[in-house]
């Protein structure tokens, strides 16, 4: 009927910007600036391809050359990783930095992959979806290595707990992390929740995922083998997340097309759960030659990286991509960050089997192209070529900046103002009151309002989860072999000294893993910083990388991968440098892991490590005096290693009743937490044995209780095993400081607080702000 035909007639299509068209119209104004490219970057693109880019090519380069995808400000410093990786460290690495995630050998034929990434900016704009898709994205990275994801963790940082915007951001982020992780069925086994004014307006939402596979099942992101099919599978492509990694160029792309879209993606955990099971079936069937997830920069990234990592070219028919919105323009399809999509390279002989498996899971799969013997990535739109580029130039040969760096001028003054000048509590009652204040302070209070919104049990392999020091999961159900993971960072220490602060973060994560009884094996990092265009921030960044790289070399554990998040700042004010470090350790049998709480009466309590008067940057100075200044605690990686050895050996020997790391809040908080965990008290009669001052006199009670010296842990062993522990200690400094039992935390001669009082101070902080 003619009426209907009139209605359905599309508006006159704009001229398709083909390669041929671009070659013939060299002087067309292009929206490179709106897409976030710099003038010299645009000129560079023109030089690489010998003409002006088509709008589709421009879209691809703009997202792939964004800071997020290209690491253009940071990668010049990455050579520090390589320079500090020894052959011995490399031996444990099955896959190193550069792939979707690093892979390490944990023995018995098992490989484990893990990685932490940031989703900071989206989570500030749209907390629920930002956090949810952060979890979804890191899970796909792990899947694309060939692994079954087995656990997630979320290091979170927010502004002031009592700021109204924190009450907008935090509940949404927590619900998003839980909503995605719970629905996809991965246990959330740990992470961090930190509050500091410096994160106001720049919350940090980092997400870590761990996956496991047999060594022979490792898959890589590469497209090789001429004639092999390129398959896009999973969700349809929509208009969400366009330019999520760069800048949205609305004027140009909106003309006659879909209306403005938010740059934040929308997650569908159910689709991803099905995708996980489908991928695992595909791997098991042996029908996948190369695989890549679609995350930041969507199809632009997947096609160019797969082709760049392979040995030939790639041809893609973009009009075959299944769409949620038929009005999307080709450049938008290339930039879309729609979630829950994967791309596989499959040999033609396996195509039918591949499709049968995706059909079984009701996952839509479409052959959109193939590997060619050329050298270019060629993308067509209804038969016309709209992209014809060398894939390496898009994926791996983006710009590199050696940005200026300079030690910030404020540091001298900051370092000069230590905690020595702060008023210290003098009586036992004062110490007791300050302990209760600290226990209820935002960073040390009970976090179960948050962590109870996460499923920590699903999959049935969780041996330890928050609030213990590490998350521990079983990998091999026959033998109990498994892994422990901890993430840590004290941004205040990194602010005072980014080199030492980064090493302290590494040391704490290493120690937490060892405290659980696992031998530390590998590292991932999420480097959250301010603007790289600020020389002071760039100096912090360089110092932190140097600290991590040199620290890892000393400890003999390699960095396997990670993520850089810049531009976490508002105006001139950057966040504290926050290099979040994740350490992964291995246990032969995770049922032997050590928990952090006292379990029974009459266990002997030991403090291992050296305690000094180190309160600069401490939680006590932060909470009681709102003070930050001085120098962070001494880094002693040899001591960490020696302590770690004892903790692992003691767990292996099966003599540990409880083991707990000392960090923020020092011995006092560690003791209170160990008591509250299972409601078993302790009497500390050996506080004078904790440490000595420069003159050799016993440290005063306050310093002994609240100092944050590193390389320390509490260990409780049944009385009958005390000699066994002491025999393991070697030259690790130690003191037997008390005995478990009763319902109080009693520090003889200083104070007594009942566990009920400790819990009352500890448990109501978050419910008071966010509701029960």
């Amino acid at each position, binding site marked *: 009927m003619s009426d209907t035909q009139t209605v359905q007639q599309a508006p006159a299509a704009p001229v398709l910007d083909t390669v041929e068209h671009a070659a013939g119209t060299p002087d067309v104004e292009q929206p490179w600036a709106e897409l976030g490219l710099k003038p010299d970057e645009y000129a560079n693109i023109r030089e690489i391809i010998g003409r002006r880019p088509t709008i589709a090519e421009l879209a691809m380069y703009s997202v792939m050359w964004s800071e997020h995808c290209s690491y253009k400000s940071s990668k010049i410093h990455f050579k520090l990783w390589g320079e500090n990786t020894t052959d011995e460290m490399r031996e444990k690495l099955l896959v190193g930095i550069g792939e979707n995630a690093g892979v390490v050998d944990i023995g018995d034929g098992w490989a484990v992959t893990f990685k932490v990434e940031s989703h900071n900016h989206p989570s500030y704009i749209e907390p629920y979806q930002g956090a949810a898709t952060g979890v979804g994205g890191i899970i796909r990275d792990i899947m694309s290595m060939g692994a079954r994801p087995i656990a997630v963790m979320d290091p979170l940082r927010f502004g002031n707990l009592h700021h109204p915007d924190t009450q907008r951001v935090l509940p949404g982020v927590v619900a998003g992390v*839980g909503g995605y992780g719970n629905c996809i069925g991965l246990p959330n086994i740990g992470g961090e929740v930190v509050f500091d004014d410096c994160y106001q307006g720049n919350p940090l939402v980092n997400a870590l995922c761990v996956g496991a596979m047999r060594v022979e099942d490792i898959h890589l992101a590469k497209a090789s083998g001429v004639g092999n099919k390129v398959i896009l599978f999973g969700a349809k492509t929509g208009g969400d997340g366009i330019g999520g990694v760069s800048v949205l160029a609305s004027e140009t792309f909106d003309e006659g097309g879909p209306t403005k879209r938010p740059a934040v993606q929308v997650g569908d955990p159910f689709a991803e759960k099905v995708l996980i099971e489908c991928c695992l079936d595909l791997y098991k069937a042996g029908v996948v030659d190369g695989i890549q997830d679609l995350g930041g920069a969507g199809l632009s990234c997947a096609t160019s990286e797969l082709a760049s990592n392979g040995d030939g070219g790639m041809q893609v028919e973009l009009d075959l991509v299944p769409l949620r919105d038929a009005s999307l323009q080709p450049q938008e399809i290339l930039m879309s960050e729609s979630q829950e999509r994967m791309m596989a390279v499959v040999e033609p002989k396996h195509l039918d089997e591949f499709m049968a498996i995706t059909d079984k*899971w*009701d996952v839509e799969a479409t052959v959109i192209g193939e590997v060619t013997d050329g050298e270019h990535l060629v993308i067509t739109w209804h038969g016309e070529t709209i992209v014809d580029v060398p894939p390496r130039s898009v994926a791996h040969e983006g710009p590199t900046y050696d940005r200026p760096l300079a030690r910030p001028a404020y540091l001298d003054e900051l370092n000069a103002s230590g905690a020595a000048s702060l008023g210290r509590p003098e009586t036992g009652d004062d110490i007791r009151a300050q302990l209760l204040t600290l226990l209820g302070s935002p960073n040390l209070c009970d976090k179960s309002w948050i962590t109870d*919104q996460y499923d920590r049990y699903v*999959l049935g392999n969780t*041996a330890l989860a928050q609030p213990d020091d590490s998350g521990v999961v079983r990998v091999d159900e026959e033998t109990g072999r498994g892994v422990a993971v901890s993430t840590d960072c004290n941004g205040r220490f990194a602010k005072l000294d980014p080199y030492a602060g980064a090493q302290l973060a590494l040391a704490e994560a290493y120690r937490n893993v060892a405290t659980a009884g696992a031998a530390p094996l590998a590292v991932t990092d999420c480097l959250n910083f301010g603007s790289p265009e600020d020389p002071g921030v760039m100096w912090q960044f360089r110092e932190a990388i140097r600290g991590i790289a040199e620290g890892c070399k000393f400890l003999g554990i390699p960095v396997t991968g990670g993520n850089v998040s810049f531009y976490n700042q508002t105006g001139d004010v950057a966040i504290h440098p926050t290099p979040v470090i994740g350490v992964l350790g291995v246990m032969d049998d995770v049922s032997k892991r050590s928990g952090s709480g006292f379990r029974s009466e009459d266990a002997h309590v030991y403090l291992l490590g050296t305690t000094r008067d180190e309160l600069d940057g401490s939680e006590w100075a932060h909470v009681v005096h709102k003070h930050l200044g001085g120098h962070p605690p001494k880094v002693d990686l040899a001591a960490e290693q020696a302590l770690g050895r004892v903790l692992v050996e003691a767990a292996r020997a099966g003599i540990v009743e409880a083991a707990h790391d000392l960090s923020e809040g020092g011995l006092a908080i560690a003791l209170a937490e160990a008591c509250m965990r299972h409601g078993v008290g302790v009497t500390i009669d050996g506080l004078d044995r904790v440490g000595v001052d420069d003159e050799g006199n016993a440290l005063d009670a306050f310093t002994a209780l609240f100092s944050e010296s590193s390389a320390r842990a509490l260990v409780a062993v049944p009385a009958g095993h005390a000699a066994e522990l002491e025999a393991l200690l070697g030259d690790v400094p130690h003191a037997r400081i008390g005995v478990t039992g009763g319902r109080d935390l009693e520090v003889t001669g200083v104070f007594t607080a009942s566990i009920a009082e400790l819990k009352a101070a500890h448990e109501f902080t978050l419910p008071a702000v966010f509701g029960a």
Partner: protein
Amino acid sequence: MRIGVVTFPGSLDDRDAARAVRECGGEAVALWHGDADLKGVDAVILPGGFSYGDYLRCGAIARFAPVMDALVPAAKGGLPVLGICNGFQVLTESHLLPGALIRNDHRKFNCVDQRLVVENASTAWTSDFEAGQEITIVLKNGEGGYVADERTLDELEGEGRVVFRYVTDAEGRNPNGSYRDIAGITNARGNVVGLMPHPEHAVEAGYGPSLDGRGFFTSIITQTLESAANA
């Protein structure tokens, strides 16, 4: 002793339920949502998870899966069926059990080690417990508030069909706003049991809050072995 565990798209605790069956001496048989085939099993578990994403009412779509075409008549004929969490939601949506599960009264997902009282120890899935026994197993859900009209609630109570009740906190509150603190119920015949908490996460030392979940699986395994011996 073969116990089927159904996998719907979005089932999450299916592998855990199968492991629990094996840990307790049974044989776990995988059943697929798309096949109206119970493979001759002696009992069926509908596991936890988010079937089909549960973007509509939980369990509302799973109810229409082909496997349910086989399961519903079998359950009505006496086949023992245990619905855990999402499985309980599927059982109420299928009208094998009365009432409904709605969003927790505090509006949040909640994962805790939960104390329960076993009120009925004579169902197919609870015969290894004692009536009045207190157990601690994992509770983890966003939509676990059990609701039904007064008449149904009275009927359940009157017929002893409340199988588990939550132990309430100091203020007398249960963890999700369930009417009359109901955590799990059974049908009149006692072969179909549904509950929100997760027994399959409490069957192995070191991986869960207790070993209290074993009783669910040993009950059915013992019972089926006995009935096989008597046959």
